[in-house]
């Protein structure tokens, strides 16, 4: 997918190794079985997974870089590209789908001039999709950062987005 790079996350040189060590060693005991959670920890810190972090992880855990790269690309939550300040996640799960999630997604795409997986030029929004966040009874649902917007109809999209910068 075509993702516009944006200068919002730290550039590779700025990787904070003290913090990396804290995630890898302190929180997850350098245990290979915790690789996925280490990656989540890193993504939690940087909003995405900077490539140098993969190499560092390989060095620290002794797991080959190729395998770590495999994990980072296999699982859908990981992003190797920087993301915008606000992360919009549209639920495209079945319950939301039958209640018109696609139309909500199209409306967002039209308003922000990006498609699924992309970031706006000014770095304010990244649009992603997810298959269910468990609020199916209130579909269609859209998550923006940590807020879940329930029963969102296409005509409410513009007003909802206005609340984020």
């Amino acid at each position, binding site marked *: 997918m075509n993702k516009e790079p944006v200068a919002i996350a730290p550039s590779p040189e700025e990787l904070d190794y003290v913090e990396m060590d804290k995630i890898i060693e302190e929180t997850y005991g350098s245990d290979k079985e915790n690789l996925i959670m280490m990656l989540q920890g890193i993504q939690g810190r940087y909003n995405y997974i900077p490539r140098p972090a993969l190499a560092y992880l390989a060095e620290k855990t002794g797991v080959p870089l190729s395998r770590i790269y495999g994990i980072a690309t296999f699982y859908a939550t*990981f992003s190797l590209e920087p993301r915008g300040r606000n992360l919009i996640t549209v639920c495209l799960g079945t319950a939301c789908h039958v*209640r018109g999630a696609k139309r909500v997604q199209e409306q967002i795409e039209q308003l922000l001039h990006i498609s699924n997986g992309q970031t706006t030029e000014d770095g304010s929004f990244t649009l992603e999709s997810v298959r*269910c966040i468990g609020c199916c009874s209130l579909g269609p649902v859209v998550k923006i950062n940590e807020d879940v*917007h329930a029963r969102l109809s296409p005509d409410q999209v513009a007003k909802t987005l206005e609340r984020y910068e």
Partner: protein
Amino acid sequence: MRILSVKDLEKISEEFNEKLSFPQGVKVNVGMASCGIAAGARATLERALKEHPAGDSIEIRQTGCIGFCEEEPLVEILAKGKPRVVYKRVTEDKLPDVFQDYMEETFSKKLILGQMRDPRSVIEEDRPNPLEKVNPIKGIPFLDEIPFYAHQIKIALRNCGYIDPDSIEEYIGRGGYFAFVRILAEMKHEEIIATIKKSGLRGRGGGGFPTGIKWESCRKHPGERYVICNADEGDPGAYMDRSVLEGDPHSVLEGMLIAAYAIGSSQGFIYVRNEYPLAVKRLVSALKQAEDFGLLGDNIAGSDFGFHVKISTGAGAFVCGESTALMASLEGNVGRPRAKYVHTVEKGFRDGPSNLNNVETYANVPVIMLKGADWFSSMGTKYSKGTKVFSLVGKVKNTGLVEVPMGTTLREIIFEMGGGIPKKRKFKAVQTGGPSGGCIPEAFLDLQVGYDELTKVGSMMGSGGMIVMDQGTCMVDLARYFLDFLKGESCGQCTPCREGIKQMLDVLTDICEGRGKEGDIELLEEMGSMIQKFSLCGLGTSAPNPVLTTILYFRDEYEAHIYDKKCPAGVCKPLFHYEVDEKACTGCHVCALKCPQQAITGEKKKLHTLDQEKCIKCGICYDTCKFDAIVVK
């Protein structure tokens, strides 16, 4: 406080049961599961806490969800000697009205969902009903009189919405951990396994494998054994596992403890999906409390039995719900399934004997152990015993979680409890079993739900998602939707699944975009049966189900797409357009105001017109028009 005996439990239980049932002042329970929060419960809770901080005569607490998500945020208010009332749609702004309503005993029908008749759970019947001597409110229905709750018997959901999920004492206050602590003192593992076998409990996560048999075979294999909980809940549209984890995490832990003791395992894992941050948070706090109470760790309740539990989070891969993929993921690897010549009960996680069960399966276990196998198996059909939680979602009036005895009919669930289809539209189908399941048409509405019953009509139980669809759902598009989902989720290691799904998806996309041709339906059937036969794991073998069942029951819709180039439901954009129905249009102008393209014009009270050139078929007008004057052509 460390629990050493049943006596210790009893002490805590009495104290907290009293607090739960007969609070000192007024007690307010705000339903704070993810669904409630999405509906605005957090603002409600914050306002309530601001107005009544800790120590106030009005005590504000948070609970999980009592299931009726459609009416959320739900707030329950109770006080000693007074009725317990559940208020509906209590957004922050309505809070003062609701408080006033309860304090002044106005009990206005408009605000209230219902009153409780008996808050006790199925395992508490040796206690008196705390509401026995309370005069009910006239004119307000009891919850069990509301159709949504009519057929429900809550086993797995017994505490959801009744206790603070962050309080182990409240769990104990409603009979929690008694099953496990008694077993530890009195029962041998063979007896536990025999009880679970006799109860007829089958896995609630998908396949429906008999739980007792799984435990027994795991126990037979030597080595370090593992007890794992599948909380990956990948089926989009199903959220009962989330609700249990968020509303009653200790019930799952207790189930795992019983399994671990029966199987002989000292290490457990809970694999939770990453999309459920609140569930993870509540689990972490539950584990900590159980450790503090000496119910997890070494020498549990003073015995020589020890059990440790680790929480691992998934990272957004549906296939990781499959047992071997889940175990690979737990080991920190890519989640690719393996062939199961050797079952995971023999060689699973770290090549040790591993027992994997679903969240709801574990939550059932303590109740079965307390109430007995016969009680449990007296509910249900011949081969499906007990209850099952379904998430009733999609195009249905009352959405939410319902726990009903197996054998309840689809009609009872969708039309009685669910209240049927909103906006006077017509029922078309119900999808069960998630991406591995199928679509069940109207003709089978009287089908009793159960594992084998659902398989017989080409669908399956799955984890209990029940997605209702009306005339506005296109079945071809839905089949395409599922394949698109599965294409993205196939792990890619075997060809029938990886390539086959893609090929089927291409054909379906052509059909949806007006390029369908004669022979496409047959081609889909042929490829489908090939993928079913030759894929490695359950994802592949069940992937064609949504396509094959929709072809079986809705062939005419496929034909309309292919031969007439029409999408009768008005979903596939190249195959329909909207028109204004001259007879129905009242000229109310609402659609014109909402149209983002300004494609609809007309003077007020006069017939409006729609400019086909400008229309992007976003459907806003179709949804907004109160007079059904926008029609699909």
